């Protein structure tokens, strides 16, 4: 384990917890430290407990841990909520002048820094900056150079003018000085090292948005929904600079249909939502597939069913994405496994959508979508982005795809299943497309032979992709191990960190993290080669485990978590250890 440090700010929703946390995370990133953040919040504008947690190290961090070293507590509940993670020597920064905090008791062995956050903020220019005073105090408690915080404050408040930036810097200094002057003897053992490394700090939703622009996406329609809204927020104001447009639709039904319209007009087009929106979009998803329209549909999964726990982690929509919709719908389902992969899989999703003229589900999950993490900027190397638009015909090549009477064939029966695509405006390309079964020209048909030919043709695109695309899983751990752990989505980073805990117990495992869920790699050989197979996922029933059993005709063991919180590395290592042990007992 890298020597890491864990910090959090907690209070009530509406207290500015999120933005304060991000300012501190950015300061750490600018100091050349790696950062992995997590959020704990209630789905209310105001009134619920919420916290922004930052794990930081000079080495790469991939998951959250059960430890808190410094906590900024704006409410007594913040301390109660985190008692299990606080330890001897933990520092709690609070404002004893706040009525609700006046009687707060600092647990035995911990260091309480009572800082008049509001009063000092007012001295600096306004009570609204009280959280920034706390950040200044945190800098002092961790021997962290406040200039990194200045740099972050400038980034976040620069748009509001230099005076605001200066006031915030001053607020931070007042917090820093207050701790220095009033707690000269406190045993503050933390010292956050800095490095010269340059990192970028972003979350999965932002990476998806950036990936979309990189891929040439010009049109986004969406309806706000937690935790997918950040995709739209990111694109708005940015995509326009690249000739694109964002529409806030009246509902998810409109969102996917607007996006479908733009895709029919030839734009690279996308919508993003979460489970409830995916349900609403399901009917149109079938139309997208039947009309052979390239479209990217992002599902940032949250806890379901129904409204579920909107701000909590879950990977419960896999079955919906694999099988959702009436009839049989050829599709792609890609699941990024990290924030970085959110970017690359989005780029790939656009290429797959256009190469195979098929809808693509991009299955992200809350744990990676709304938490900021650091990466080396080269992780998002724009020079490595490639665009493949597939079989688009122009006015010259169109003649090869017309009937004798000049009718264009948008659903031409071809060997690889992919038909020519004429973008509206192309002379000689006018054609109908429809959700009804149709002939090669897109005209409605109930001809039994044509029906079978069209179904086969559409399904053949999936088979073609299986042959042409690299669907390999991502591999970690010991390739020769008899213990195989399979997972998908954001669990990858946690699993990689769990390896170290398992090693300490003398357990080796081979990890395969699967980003292609349909079409997907054939894992039969890997599963057969292993003595024990464990599938790790954040849902109750083991949807991916079912898929693996279906594909490989082998029973697998399951580690599931569905309480709304993502896995933690030590906890996951324990779960895997116990699951493997249980298997051995049965065999014995």
């Amino acid at each position: 384990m890298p020597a890491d440090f864990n910090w959090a700010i907690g209070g009530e929703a509406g207290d500015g917890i999120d933005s304060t946390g991000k300012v501190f995370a950015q300061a750490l990133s600018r100091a050349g430290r790696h950062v992995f953040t997590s959020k704990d919040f209630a789905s209310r504008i105001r009134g619920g407990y919420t916290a922004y947690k930052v794990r930081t190290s000079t080495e790469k961090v991939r998951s959250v841990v059960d430890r808190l070293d410094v906590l900024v507590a704006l409410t007594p509940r913040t301390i109660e909520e985190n008692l299990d993670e606080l330890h001897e020597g933990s520092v709690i920064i609070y404002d004893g002048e706040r009525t609700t905090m006046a009687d707060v008791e600092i647990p035995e062995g911990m260091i309480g820094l009572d800082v008049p956050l509001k009063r000092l903020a007012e001295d600096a220019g306004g009570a609204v900056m009280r959280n920034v005073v706390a950040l200044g105090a945190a800098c002092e408690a961790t021997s962290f150079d406040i200039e990194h915080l200045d740099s972050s404050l400038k980034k976040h408040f620069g748009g509001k003018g230099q005076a605001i930036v200066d006031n915030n810097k001053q607020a931070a200094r007042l917090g820093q000085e207050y701790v220095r002057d009033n707690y000269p003897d406190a045993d503050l053992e933390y010292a956050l090292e800095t490095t010269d490394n340059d990192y970028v700090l972003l979350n999965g939703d932002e990476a998806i948005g950036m990936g979309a622009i990189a891929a040439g996406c010009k049109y986004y329609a969406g309806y706000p929904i937690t935790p997918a809204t950040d995709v739209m927020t990111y694109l708005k104001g940015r995509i326009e600079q690249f000739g694109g447009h964002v529409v806030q639709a009246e509902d998810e039904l409109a969102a996917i249909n607007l996006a479908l319209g733009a895709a029919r007009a030839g734009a690279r087009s996308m919508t993003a939502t979460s489970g409830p929106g995916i349900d609403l979009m399901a009917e149109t998803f079938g139309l997208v597939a039947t009309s052979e329209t390239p479209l990217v549909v992002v599902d940032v999964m949250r806890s379901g069913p129904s409204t579920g726990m909107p701000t909590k982690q879950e990977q419960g929509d896999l079955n919906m994405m694999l099988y959702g919709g009436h009839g049989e719908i050829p599709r792609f389902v890609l699941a990024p496994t990290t924030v970085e992969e959110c970017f690359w899989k989005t780029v790939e999703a656009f290429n797959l959508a256009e190469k195979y003229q098929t809808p693509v589900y991009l299955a992200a999950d809350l744990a990676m979508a709304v938490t900021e993490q650091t990466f080396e900027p080269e992780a998002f190397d724009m020079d490595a982005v490639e665009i493949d638009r597939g079989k688009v015909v122009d006015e010259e090549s169109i003649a090869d795809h017309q009937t004798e009477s000049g009718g264009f064939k948008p659903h031409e029966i071809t060997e690889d299943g992919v038909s020519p695509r004429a973008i509206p405006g192309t002379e000689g390309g006018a054609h109908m497309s429809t959700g009804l079964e149709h002939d090669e020209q897109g005209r409605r048909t109930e001809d039994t032979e044509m029906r079978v030919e069209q179904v086969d043709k559409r399904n053949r695109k999936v088979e073609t992709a299986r042959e042409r695309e690299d669907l390999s899983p991502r591999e970690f751990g010991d390739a020769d191990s008899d213990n195989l752990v399979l997972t998908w989505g954001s669990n990858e980073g946690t699993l990689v960190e769990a390896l170290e805990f398992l090693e300490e117990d003398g357990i080796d495992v081979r990890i395969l993290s699967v980003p292609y869920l349909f079409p997907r790699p054939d894992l039969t050989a890997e599963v057969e080669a292993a003595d024990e197979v464990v599938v790790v996922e954040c849902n109750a029933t083991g949807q991916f485990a079912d898929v693996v059993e279906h594909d490989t005709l082998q029973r697998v063991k399951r580690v599931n978590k569905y309480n709304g919180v993502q896995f933690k590395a030590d906890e996951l290592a324990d779960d895997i250890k116990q699951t493997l042990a249980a298997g051995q007992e049965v065999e014995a």
Partner: protein
Amino acid sequence: MSSEVRFTDFKSDKQPTWCPGCGDFGTMNGMMKALAETGNDPDNTFVVAGIGCSGKIGTYMHSYAIHGVHGRALPVGAGVKMANPDLEVMVAGGDGDGYSIGAGHFVHAVRRNVDMSYIVMDNRIYGLTKGQASPTSREDFETSTTPEGPQQPPVNPLALALASGATFIAQSFSSDALRHQEIVRKAIEHDGFGFVNVFSPCVTFNDVDTYDYFRDSLVDLQETDYDPHDREAAKEKVLDADKEYMGVLYQDENSVPYEETHGLDSSMADIDHEGAPEGATDLVREFY
């Protein structure tokens, strides 16, 4: 090409399966003629059709077209137009598609004011499913699913449009070929969302709202001194419980279409780069 375009160029080689005498024949003819008359050709025209008898229109016309899911034609049309403002976009559907399952989109399409036309073939009945009440059926109109009539007032699409901020509201009658074509033409020419409710009688399942009924009762605003630019006058007309009108009921001369408000002036279909667009690396730098 456009100078040589004839309205029959917009006709596909599929023969309509509408019942003989269906109003939709006339409605479609007027649409094709108006498209040709306004200088469009099939390769720059995009027709979006809804579901229902009216929804078949995309199959019988020749142009770029999509026949979507029930009730969602309007957002599809808006998406097409935003992504390529050079296309002439026409959305066509029925009263069920537009005012029942798609009523939510109707309100928002009107508000959005994308420069396209919306032709609703209003026959006040569900024809394709063989005669159930539609949102515009009369309160006492007896059908298999409403033996005592719907017992609720019909949707008033014109008033709904006006209340939602429409910039162009018109009503026509499929059997009055010249007036219908002229009204659709005005909707196409309008800078914004051109909404036309077309009385398009169902001869099979609706024996109340018939050709005779509309012929006898419709008042053509063209034959009065009505000023379609007067919103207050339009309010009175669309809420008139005693009479039904034909013609342009309201047109906002200062209408600014969505594309203009949002600076959409070119096709999004072209991608002139094989990798990420120029300047994309700046997006990464933003995250420092």
